[in-house]
């Protein structure tokens, strides 16, 4: 317990305050091991072991029988899995329709469930500054987290009515498929097979692309010079597959090093076990700022993939899907119409017809059909701000400082706002 606490403290601290080098971590571990050894010596000096034969024998037998039961357990599980396969195949179309109907009737939809429960459950992360991390007070912050807060405000009126489940990249699919969370916002790239298998993608909230980071002293200036490199990557991501495609297309030799945790990937990269770290460019930028000497690392100019990121909702509930889409649209158009957390009430009382419609002061954007309050967007913007505010707070000047001007993540070219960044691809279904 003690060791785990120490280790997790260390990791949490790194996530918050920028990272120590892996040297620190190793030293810490060595120190811990030394302490434990001292403890063991002290312990062994205190205990005598004159005649433990019987106890040991019993122990050994207990171990053996435990293993036996574990084995039979595994056996049973394998049988169950087999039976499951048969069952799933047998289920015909009509059975499926009946099940669908039954589900609609007895659950009453996810909106009702969430309102009953009193909070929105989002699957997200706490390990990448800007997207999802913990602040000094231990509060969940980040771009993805704010989207969850916006949704919570829309359906419950309270930005704090959220429960964040921290999951690894590889857990995203099963988590959203099982429907155990209301929304998945964990830098999830929208791909067709994920859309078909995982859940419904509501709206692209950030346009990203995969890039490569290398130590500056290698003198590499282009991704097309990466022949023969060892590449570090996190498992269970599109990044991993894009990397394989890129090197295969260019007929480059490479050595993939695949890790579960972003922390370990960074350790391996820092130590030079691999020469290249590949990830979405924005995450590379965020993680680069966390390295001891950010200037010693360069992000290569090439972008090898398209990575539209956004929230995902479970399959099977159209109303919930529409609610999430509308909230995301609302955030984007709020920026376009110049509505921010500071001026919501004055705009609602003003004379801009489109803005008033968005805020529910006049006309409708479909609140009734969605089952939401007419003025839900007022609460949302008051609580978390518009798209631009969320971006600036987490990814922009107040966060990890990714430039938005002239990038894909500015609003569309002829957005009606006066001083917002334009010329990008952020665009959503009009609120009408």
């Amino acid at each position, binding site marked *: 317990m003690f*060791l*785990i606490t120490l280790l997790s403290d260390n990791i949490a601290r790194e996530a918050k305050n920028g990272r120590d080098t*892996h*040297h620190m971590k*190793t030293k810490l*571990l060595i120190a811990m*091991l030394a302490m434990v*050894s001292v403890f*063991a*010596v002290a*312990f*062994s000096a205190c205990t005598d072991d004159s005649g433990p*034969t019987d106890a*040991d*024998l019993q*122990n*050994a*037998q207990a*171990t053996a029988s*435990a*293993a036996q039961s*574990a*084995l039979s357990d*595994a056996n049973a*599980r*394998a049988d*169950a*899995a087999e*039976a*499951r*396969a048969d*069952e799933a195949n047998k289920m015909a179309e009509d059975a499926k329709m009946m*099940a669908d109907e039954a589900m609609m009737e007895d659950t009453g939809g996810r909106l009702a469930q969430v309102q009953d429960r009193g909070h929105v459950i989002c699957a997200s992360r706490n390990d990448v500054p800007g997207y999802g991390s913990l602040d000094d007070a231990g509060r969940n912050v980040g771009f993805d987290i704010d989207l969850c807060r916006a949704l919570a405000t829309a359906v419950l009126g309270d930005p704090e009515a959220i429960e964040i489940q921290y999951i690894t990249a*590889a857990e995203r699919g*099963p988590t959203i*498929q*099982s429907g155990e969370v209301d929304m998945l916002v964990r830098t999830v790239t929208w791909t067709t*097979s994920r859309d078909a*298998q995982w859940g419904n993608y509501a709206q692209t909230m950030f346009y990203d692309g995969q890039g490569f980071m290398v130590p500056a002293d*290698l003198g*590499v200036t282009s991704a097309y*010079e990466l022949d*023969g490199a*060892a590449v570090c990557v996190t*498992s*269970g*991501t*599109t990044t*991993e*597959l894009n990397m394989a495609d890129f090197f*295969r297309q260019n007929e480059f*030799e490479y050595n993939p*090093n695949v890790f*579960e945790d972003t922390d*370990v990937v960074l350790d*391996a990269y820092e*130590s*030079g*076990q691999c*020469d290249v770290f590949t990830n979405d460019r924005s995450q590379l930028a965020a993680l680069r700022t966390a390295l001891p000497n950010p200037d010693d690392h360069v992000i290569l100019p090439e972008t090898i993939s398209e990575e539209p990121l956004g929230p995902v909702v479970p399959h099977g509930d159209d109303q919930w899907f529409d609610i999430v889409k509308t909230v995301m649209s609302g955030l984007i158009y709020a920026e376009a119409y110049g509505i921010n957390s500071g001026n919501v009430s004055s705009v609602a009382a003003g004379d801009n017809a489109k803005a008033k419609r968005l805020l529910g002061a006049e006309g409708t954007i479909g609140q009734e059909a969605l089952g939401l309050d007419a003025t839900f967007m007022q609460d949302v913007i008051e609580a978390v701000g518009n798209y631009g505010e969320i971006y600036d707070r987490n990814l922009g000047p107040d966060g990890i400082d990714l430039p938005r001007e002239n990038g894909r993540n500015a609003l569309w070219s002829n957005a009606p706002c006066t001083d917002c960044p334009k010329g990008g691809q952020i665009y959503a279904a009009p609120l009408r």
Partner: protein
Amino acid sequence: MQSILYPGGIPLWRNVVFIQWVVQIISAIVVIAIVSGFIFNVANEIQDREIPFGFSFLDEAAQIPIGESVIDYDPSESYLYGFTVAALNTVKASVLGVVLATMLGIIIGVSRLSSNWLLSRLALVYIDTFRNIPLLIQLLFWFLIILELPNVREGYVFFDAFYLNNSGFYLPWATPLGGFWPWAILTAVGILAAIVAYNVLNRREIETGKSSYPIIAGFIIIFVVTIIGLIIFTPLELVVPERQEGPFGRLQGGARWSGSFFALLIGLVVYTSAFIAEIVRAGIQAVNRGQTEAARSLGLNTNNSLRFVIFPQALRVIIPPLISQYLNLTKNSSLAAAIGYPDLVSVSTTMTQIAPAISLIGMVMVTYLAMSLFYSLVGNIYNRITRYAGVG
């Protein structure tokens, strides 16, 4: 028979046979209900949530990278092949781990019983330390230690052929050429001949008492046959790792034992050997002290009495729990994903990007089960051979 308590005969609810049957039937019904409830629930959920399921993906190209493999791998190979590569990586870690952990465990277990105070205390500290720290933390510890080695461009080089750095250990390796199989067959024949020669000479030594050097003779036969085969067939080519051109200076050719693999192997061996040491100690102490005394009074020294008298008897106590440690080691190797070794769990996690997760997890479960059952089988056969005749 007329009962005093129940003059009219024993009623049904007091009838032992009847009660036993009822309990059996009720238990069976409960078990069936729970299991089928579980199955139907899962089947329904799969259906309702449209979770993909099936095995048709196995023929498709996997398109995923695997960092190291026992057999050649390329991302254009099928999922099934990729899965096999990953399974072989697990087998490699598991088999090497089992062998090394057994050797180390026996040494430490015997040291634990040594009359040398320092040695036995050191063994105790070793056991208590490594048995009581979670394996995942130990793996990360060894991995971070290996990362402390210089990188591939600055690492250690021995004889221009062996390279040690934080990417792993690179060494010259023989790749098979056309003449490999004839050579392999010839060598196999040579080994058989050596075994026969060993048995013949060994029997002669026992029967006549003349020194016949059976072990030396066996090795000479193997050595001569192998060399002759090498000269005739040229079956192998020694490939020395070479530094590639370009900024990365990676090494190519020969064999590579990656840093992640070393960290995994060291972690598994150290952790498991602590348990095995205790099992060995328990086994030795389970042998009656009279056996040691009898052996010593026959004139056997400490080593020989341990080797010929104590250990064979201790084995029948040691083997069953030892097998369960082998199974643990195999299953624990699934923690490799944390330190970047492409084992079964790590690779199949990557595969769930596109392939259905439930099918893959089912396959992973079956594979581990098969491996574990195989170890059990081998262990049980060995157990049957070593146990006393007429016992159990």
